[in-house]
């Protein structure tokens, strides 16, 4: 059994409510943190090696240390609960079942950063979770964990929930800040970074839900102890939301010491591919990250076992690897069509592009149109090269990473599944009747031996 430090108590009856949560050791990290200085808390988080759990994997302690502290200017912590990356539903699980864990993490983190008004920006569709969070906040406040002069420390803190209204782009931190300010979610040009000039031009740190929840076990265990979980720079535990053609879809906490194969096939996790089918492909970290065929998913191009860690999932770069991303693990069995899947993602990114940068605004729609044609047997071979060309011209040419996120899935699908695209073009009527199937995507790959 892997070690669990985040959702290990999620099964306890009534844990959503304050009394049960507190009885089970809740809010101990606040008591512990308040006995030390805010700088000490930042230091513990640095020692823990915690990396942002929203997708980018940037070291949290380092991000915190960048926050500017100009005299007399308030600072803000904003929790990014705008979980919208297709395949990702882990933050929802945390907030729905363990709302107090997030509130506890927010109090400790607000203390570390000096935020007296902290905001949870939650996606508009999670409407019922707003009620759960607001109830937890009220309970925490009634018990003295929020408000003025908390536990006699002189530290004041309020937490507010701010509900979005349906825009994937608001998961990007500067778009999120714009949206918090009551504007369209158009990302800002960086610099200035939010740590210097964020919400209302004040120094702001934006962190993912899971990242902030992880601060609780980090303080409870100590940064060094937390860093002992996992392998190398992948410290601690990670929530993986697994979906697609697996037997047991759901949210799993892994301690980043297991292999991808174990994650998919062991009964502790996904329980294998559903309906006795075979594994064809997987998008291991949310829709933006490169899709991998089965033979590159389970083993790296070098022939090593691929592990569920940041480093191993990205082993081989984008040529033969992928990314941990947000932990949205989407599994495709032999009956699935990679062209169709890529088309739905392209449609998603076209729908979610904010329209600010031409390469993304125009490119995402163009890719969607071409992919729709190929999927419906109306494509040309030259379309495949055109798609490649368009994604190349989007990547890196936009203000925010949505352009990259739209380009990568298309690039990887063509890179690894080009013959499936060609089959669609060459068999325009057959591709409407059946899918390409498993083909050679699970065959062992020849491992290049250096001369």
């Amino acid at each position, binding site marked *: 059994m892997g070690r669990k430090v985040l959702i290990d108590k999620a099964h306890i009856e009534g844990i959503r409510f304050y009394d049960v949560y507190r009885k089970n050791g809740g809010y101990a990290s606040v008591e512990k943190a308040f006995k030390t200085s805010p700088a000490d808390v930042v230091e513990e988080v640095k020692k823990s090696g915690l990396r942002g759990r929203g997708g980018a994997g940037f070291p949290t302690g380092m991000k915190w240390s960048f926050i500017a502290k100009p005299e007399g200017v308030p600072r803000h912590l904003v929790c990014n609960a705008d979980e919208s990356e297709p395949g*990702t539903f882990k933050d929802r699980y945390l907030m729905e079942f363990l709302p107090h864990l997030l509130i506890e993490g927010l109090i400790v983190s607000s203390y570390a950063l000096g935020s007296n008004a902290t905001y949870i920006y939650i996606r*508009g569709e999670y409407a019922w979770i707003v009620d759960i969070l607001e109830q937890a906040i009220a309970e925490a406040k009634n018990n003295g964990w929020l408000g003025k002069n908390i536990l006699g420390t002189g530290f004041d803190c309020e937490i507010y929930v701010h509900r979005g209204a349906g825009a994937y782009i608001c998961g990007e931190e500067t778009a999120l800040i714009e949206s918090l300010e*009551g504007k369209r979610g158009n990302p800002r040009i960086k610099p200035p970074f939010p740590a210097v000039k964020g919400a*209302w031009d004040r120094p702001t740190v934006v962190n993912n839900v899971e990242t902030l929840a992880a601060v609780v076990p980090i303080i409870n265990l100590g940064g060094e102890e937390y860093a002992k979980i996992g392998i190398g720079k992948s410290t601690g535990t990670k929530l993986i939301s697994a979906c*697609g*053609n697996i037997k047991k879809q*759901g949210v799993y906490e892994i301690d980043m010491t297991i292999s991808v194969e174990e994650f998919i096939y062991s009964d502790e996790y996904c329980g294998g591919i559903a309906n006795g089918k075979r594994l064809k492909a997987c998008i291991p970290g949310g*829709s933006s990250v490169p899709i991998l065929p089965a033979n590159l998913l389970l083993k790296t191009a070098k022939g090593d076992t691929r592990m569920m860690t940041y480093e191993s999932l990205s082993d081989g770069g984008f040529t033969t690897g992928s990314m941990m991303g947000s932990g949205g693990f989407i599994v495709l069995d032999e009956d699935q069509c990679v062209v169709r899947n890529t088309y739905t993602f392209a449609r*998603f990114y076209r729908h979610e592009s904010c329209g600010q940068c031409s390469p993304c605004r125009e490119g995402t729609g163009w890719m969607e149109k071409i992919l729709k044609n190929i999927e419906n047997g109306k494509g040309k071979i030259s379309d495949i090269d055109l798609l490649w060309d368009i994604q190349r011209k989007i990547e890196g040419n936009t203000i925010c990473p949505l352009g990259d996120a739209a380009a990568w899935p298309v690039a990887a699908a063509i890179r690894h599944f080009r013959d499936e695209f060609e089959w669609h073009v060459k068999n325009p009527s057959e591709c409407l009747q059946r899918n390409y199937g498993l083909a050679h995507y699970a065959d062992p790959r020849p491992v290049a031996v250096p001369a």
Partner: protein
Amino acid sequence: MVKFSDEKLKKVDEIVARYPAGKQKSALLPVLHLAQDEFGGWLSAESMDYVASLLHLEPIEVYEVATFYSMYNLKPVGKYMFEVCQTGPCMINGCDDIIKYISDTLGIKPGETTADGLFSLKTVECLGACGYAPMMQLGKTFREHLTKEKIDGIIAECRRNAN
């Protein structure tokens, strides 16, 4: 003329107080949600102008926000809106069949409303329920692991509640 009740006006003040003084524009998204809930499930120009006056904004500041976010309806919708997810993981789990089934059962295409004004069908992009697909949003809640039988049940439930 649209107007919030005193209770809702108090709620607006409470929302505005969450943000720094003078930054009442930050309350725009939550107040638009409130207006949509109160004024028939959609945002008319009149409702948006009213929100602008409450928050001391130019109407254009409200329009540009209302048109950006997909959850604000800019034309009337049915009393019950079936918002069915159609992105990758839901597609893998058969959302296309669900959309078609709803469409056939209610006799409306995505984007349309039934003549009695009871139901609207809308296809949406990923709602964060990929492990419980296929799914749809109905009001404030998610309906997950959808099957044709479940859809029949939900439609019957809506009809019952409407009376």
